[in-house]
């Protein structure tokens, strides 16, 4: 009782061909990484420095994704459902960094956290510049506007009526949000988290500006790739890139199952159509 491909559907053929082109293009890119990096992969696996970079990348990307999530969800909610003055301008301000080169965003962070305010923070023990925290900050400022926009779009698509109905059944606004809005926006939110985490893993434009790359201290995988490329060691750089690919592959594989589980079962799932 599965859907069946109509043998003559031009539309299907067209979309499949485009997909094939895209897959071929991206495969070529990935293949070029694999070819260049493969001979150096063994070496990279056993390098303590690379292992450190893997751990640091996973750590910072996860934390910054978490920070983005925690900030983006309430912000996205108040931008879609809330009514506060200057909402529209707040929205535009939040999205302005979307088109900023990451380098500039890094510089902004450097300026902010080198100011008196940043010095005060440092004295309180929260060091940003040249510190792990800086990596997290860099990834956060780069990704936060994305996450907010993605989740905002998702929340806007949720039928407000169901929230009202939940309210009538006794759900406080908080509960309505947790039991209706968020679950109904689930797939888009998961998608946003994956995108942001991936970008966190690959980001280094802003990071390099805020923390540079100190061996065994602030050297993430992309920073390690950057350093290797700067010293002409493309092989080692590509080996690190392969490691990112592997991490990415595993996490995409794992999350694709998460997303596939669509809770809104519909009788149309059994329908056979062309």
């Amino acid at each position, binding site marked *: 009782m599965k859907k069946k491909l109509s043998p003559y559907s031009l539309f299907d053929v067209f979309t499949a061909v485009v997909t094939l082109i895209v897959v071929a293009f991206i495969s070529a890119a990935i293949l070029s990484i694999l070819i260049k990096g493969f001979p150096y992969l063994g070496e990279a696996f056993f390098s303590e420095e690379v292992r450190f970079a893997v751990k640091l990348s996973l750590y910072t990307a996860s934390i910054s994704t978490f920070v983005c999530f925690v900030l983006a969800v309430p912000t996205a909610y108040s931008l879609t459902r809330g009514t506060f003055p200057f909402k529209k301008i707040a929205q535009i301000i939040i999205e302005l960094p979307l088109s900023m080169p990451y380098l500039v965003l890094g510089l902004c962070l450097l300026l902010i956290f080198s100011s008196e305010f940043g010095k005060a923070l440092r004295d309180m023990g929260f060091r940003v510049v040249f510190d792990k925290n800086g990596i997290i900050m860099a990834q956060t400022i780069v990704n936060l506007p994305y996450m907010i926009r993605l989740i905002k779009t998702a929340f806007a698509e949720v039928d407000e009526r169901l929230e009202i*109905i*939940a309210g*009538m059944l006794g*759900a406080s606004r908080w509960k309505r949000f947790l039991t209706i809005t968020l679950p109904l926006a689930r797939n888009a939110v998961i998608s946003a988290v994956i995108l942001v985490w991936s970008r966190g893993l690959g980001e280094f434009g802003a990071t390099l500006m805020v923390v540079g790359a100190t061996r065994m201290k602030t050297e993430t995988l992309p920073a390690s790739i950057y350093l290797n490329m700067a010293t002409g060691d493309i092989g080692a750089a590509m080996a690190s890139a392969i490691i990112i690919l592997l991490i990415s592959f595993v996490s995409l594989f794992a999350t694709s199952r998460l997303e596939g589980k669509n809770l*809104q*079962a519909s*009788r149309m799932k059994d329908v056979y159509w062309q």
Partner: protein
Amino acid sequence: MAVNPLVEIRDYSLRLGKFKLQPINLMINEGEIFGVLGKTGSGKTVLLESIAGFYRGCSGQIWIQGQDIAEVPLEKRGIGFVYQDFGLFPHMTVADNIGYGLRMQRKEKQTIKDEVNRMAEILAISPILKQYPGTLSGGERQRTAIARALVLNPRILLLDEPFSSLDPATKETMYRQVKEIHQLFGCTILFVTHDFKEAQTMADRIGIMIKGELKSIRRSEELFIRDSDEEVNRFLGLSDRV
């Protein structure tokens, strides 16, 4: 018996797009069952939604137990609403839909389960408790929506064509069940229907809406008594009889 007006509508009017709800005056007593009849598009659903406090009227006010209902936060209104299109939560099973309100009251897991099962049995939807709304038949959806509202024993029940998707036999059972619950908990019920017989069976009083106007309110035994308004007579099918 000194009955208190539970719902008090005073000169309430409303505009929605091109539709105008003409100023309405209506008192509904505690424990009463009030039926609303009317042509399609005449504003029956809007009236129910207004009583639930969904709109700020253009004029007038609606009080429930002396409170301006629109001022009460949604979750404190204590109104059970069965929506014409059910409004089930698509991401929850039937059981979770029915138990939703109880969960919001932080009832115990076991209590919720028992209550849901009891309600499901009454409405004959026990076999579908694990299904998602998307897979239900029309009548099953409707009964799920009814169960979700009834399980909370609200002081007021607003039912918008609650039995329209049910077969006659199931309808009969539903009439009995709702009346039983009404007697047990003494809730006040407003319901919309297109079925004159249903209105007479269930309601104490019946209101007739025509083009946004609540034209006539009468005791249900007197439903087919001719009105001074010709439109009401025509709606009741009394014009032909004359």
